[in-house]
């Protein structure tokens, strides 16, 4: 890789330029190979239902030119941030040329200028960065102070979260705040909760579970079926859903006790898929693909959110607004998530939590010490599954509709990615990762301004999962150990403290 190029000596500039050019050419050639069939032609169905090809050569040219320029600049730059900037600038430059050639002079010159400025800035800043500067040495924060800061930050964050829906509803009005509370608040919190639940299994006990969505589905269908068939209320079904999901955790956990690592991941994936296929095909119970609709809504401990005398608004003398239900749902999932977090934090201090962490670090040593690995693993599975069941039951009450489509492998992969990106075991890391990944994909729904750049046929929502997958790869390459990777056991002996600061391999 050219990134490890030595600091630029004046005489080497030409050589470096040539090498960067060559790398750019190779990258461009590879890009040609990648884009030739898939991008260059688009298959379309004509009126006679035959497939015909439409060509898209300008797109190929744009892609190849961008890759060339970005790789060329990467060869010249050594700082990765400047490389990223240069890549973006390269894209802008190429796009500007494309706009110019299709007659949009204004936009064309704008992007050309932006791209040129970006390239210049990246070159200039990179040259400054390459000079050995006397870097200010960072003082390590003492662990005591860090703990206090974390505690304070967590308390403040939770207070903000509790205030958030009321503030949003007050300032944005009922319809304006719906998007923020529902799409961002509730959606992210569901994944925070799922992440924390899976964190028990993956982060603490080190058992790689790729079928977590199965328990989510069990919880959702438990509530859906119990409430539509027997008319049970949400507050009865919630513990039932948790208990049932925990049972399934035990049932699925038992056969896989001997497996570890990737194999465990694949088997749990298979279990997740089996449960989904059963949900699809057992039509008598689950209504198959069509799913279960008109699931009863959530009530305020028995008082429904409806616009009449028996409703929540009338009861408390408030004007009726549909946002009240959403706000209640927000508080509900917030409390459930905090419960998950609280239980996890407490369990970590119990012998069982210590046993999980020991199991994660070294199973053989764990056994040699007389820890019952069967119980340890099964409790982790069951508890993780229980919280998944709670979350699933919440999902059903929020959507009022469940179908097997909501419980695909992508969900499991997303939750696992959140846990791994969060740093495997770090509660705050999981929350941050959920915000980054789920919030990020939600933002992609909003980017209507991109239509002005890429034309009206451009639909950013279409690219959501594409960017999501790509971001997953990039984040792993960037931080393979997750955002917060201080994976330290909760308890250490005095002598081991010095060593414990290092990461176990």
């Amino acid at each position, binding site marked *: 890789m050219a990134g490890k190029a030595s600091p630029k000596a004046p005489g080497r500039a030409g050589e470096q330029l040539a090498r960067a050019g060559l790398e750019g050419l190779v990258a461009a050639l590879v890009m040609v190979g990648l884009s030739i069939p898939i991008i260059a032609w688009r298959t379309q169905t004509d009126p006679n*239902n035959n*497939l015909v090809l439409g060509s898209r050569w300008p797109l190929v040219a744009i892609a190849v030119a961008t890759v060339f320029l970005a790789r060329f600049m990467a060869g010249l730059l050594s700082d990765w941030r400047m490389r990223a900037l240069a890549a973006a600038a390269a894209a802008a430059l190429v796009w500007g040329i494309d706009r110019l050639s299709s007659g949009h002079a204004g936009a064309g010159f704008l992007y050309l200028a932006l791209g040129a400025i970006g390239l210049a800035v990246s070159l200039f800043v990179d040259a400054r960065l390459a000079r050995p500067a006397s870097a200010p040495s960072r003082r390590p924060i003492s662990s005591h102070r860090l703990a206090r800061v974390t505690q304070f930050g967590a308390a403040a964050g939770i207070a903000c979260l509790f205030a958030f829906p009321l503030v949003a509803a007050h300032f944005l009005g009922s319809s304006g705040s719906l998007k923020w509370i529902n799409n961002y608040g509730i959606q992210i919190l569901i994944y925070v909760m799922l992440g924390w639940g899976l964190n028990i299994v993956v982060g603490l006990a080190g058992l790689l579970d790729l079928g977590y969505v199965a328990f989510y589905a069990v919880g959702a269908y438990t509530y859906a079926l119990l409430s539509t068939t027997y008319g049970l209320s949400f507050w009865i079904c919630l513990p039932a859903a948790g208990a049932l999901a925990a049972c399934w955790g035990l049932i699925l956990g038992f056969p896989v006790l001997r497996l570890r690592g990737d194999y465990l991941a694949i*088997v749990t994936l298979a279990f997740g898929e089996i449960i989904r*296929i059963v949900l699809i095909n057992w039509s008598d119970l689950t209504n198959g693909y069509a799913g279960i609709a008109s699931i009863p809504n959530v009530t305020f401990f028995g008082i429904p959110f409806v616009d009449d005398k028996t409703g929540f608004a009338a009861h408390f003398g408030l004007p009726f607004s549909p946002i009240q239900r959403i706000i209640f749902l927000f508080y509900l999932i917030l409390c459930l998530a905090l419960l998950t977090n609280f239980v996890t934090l407490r369990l970590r201090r119990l012998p069982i939590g210590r046993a999980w962490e020991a199991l994660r670090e070294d199973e053989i040593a764990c056994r040699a010490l007389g820890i019952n690995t069967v119980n340890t693993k099964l409790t982790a599975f069951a508890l993780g599954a229980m919280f998944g069941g709670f979350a699933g039951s919440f999902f059903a009450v929020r959507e009022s509709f469940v179908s097997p489509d909501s419980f695909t492998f992508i969900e499991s992969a997303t939750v696992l990615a959140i846990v*791994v990106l969060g740093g495997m075991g770090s509660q705050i890391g999981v929350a941050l990762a959920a915000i980054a990944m789920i919030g990020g994909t939600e933002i992609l729904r909003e980017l209507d301004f991109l239509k002005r750049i890429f034309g009206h046929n451009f639909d950013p929502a279409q690219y959501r999962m594409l960017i999501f997958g790509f971001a*997953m790869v990039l984040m792993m390459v960037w931080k393979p*150990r997750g955002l917060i990777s201080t994976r330290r056991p909760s308890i250490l002996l005095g002598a081991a403290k010095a060593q414990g600061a290092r990461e176990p391999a």
Partner: protein
Amino acid sequence: MGDFLQQLINGLALGSIYGLIAIGYTMVYGIIGMVNFAHGDLFMLSAFVALIFFLVLTQILGMTSLPLVFFLVLVGAMVVTSVWNWTIERFAYRPLRGSFRLAPLISAIGMSIFLSNFVQVAQGPRNKPIPPMFEHVIELTPGAGFDVTISYKQLIIMGVTAVLLVAFWWIVQKTALGRAQRACEQDRKMAALLGVDVDRTISLTFVMGAALAAVAGSLYMLQYGVVNFSDGFTPGVKAFTAAVLGGIGSLPGAVLGGLLIGLIETFWSAYISTDYKDVAAFSILAVTLIFLPSGLLGRPEVEKV
């Protein structure tokens, strides 16, 4: 009897496709110990590449000789898919080599999501049908009182699979590249010390896996006549099952596992239930891993402390 023989032939044809994909999994797992989650989607991508090449050759270039077209499609798909997998390895897996164990797995899952959505965005979400080819069937049991037929498609699938397997078997067993691969499989550090270019060997392993996945993709398109961007996941998991069943890391095992999975799936659909045919494959995966983790032909893994 006739029905049984017919299902046997159908199962072997399907199993050949699974076997070809399974080799990609087993080779990559053998050499870097990673489940290449994106392999199923790479297979799907290669089916699209084959579809587009087919349309280019028949519509734009106006070629009419089907065997020649199919041969060119096969070669083209192999080349393009190899470039794809080479790039994926370089971009998404190589930087993570020697890093935390879960990182490559997550990266591969991300790549899998990326690939299927990339194809969806680039080619549209609808099913892509092609006109049927090689329609002829051969009567295998004339005058026996029951009909057993084998179609040209099935013959092509089995023939191509057999030829490629022999070729790749030869590469792995007899060439310097194959020796390097087997060396890396046993001990990567030692192989590097002895002068094997480990990075290059791993890249070539991905390329070989991709080439076989491309063949599988082309054959899949030929057999079913329709491809969709979401077609990668289930065959991918089934092929992984095949690799596990045969013993991961073992090339003949992957083929054997593929054939078995194909047969089981076909017989299950024919005699028990079509709805639950995927459950059959997934259950085999779970049962194999639990009771026979080293597979049929694999070496048992010895755990050292």
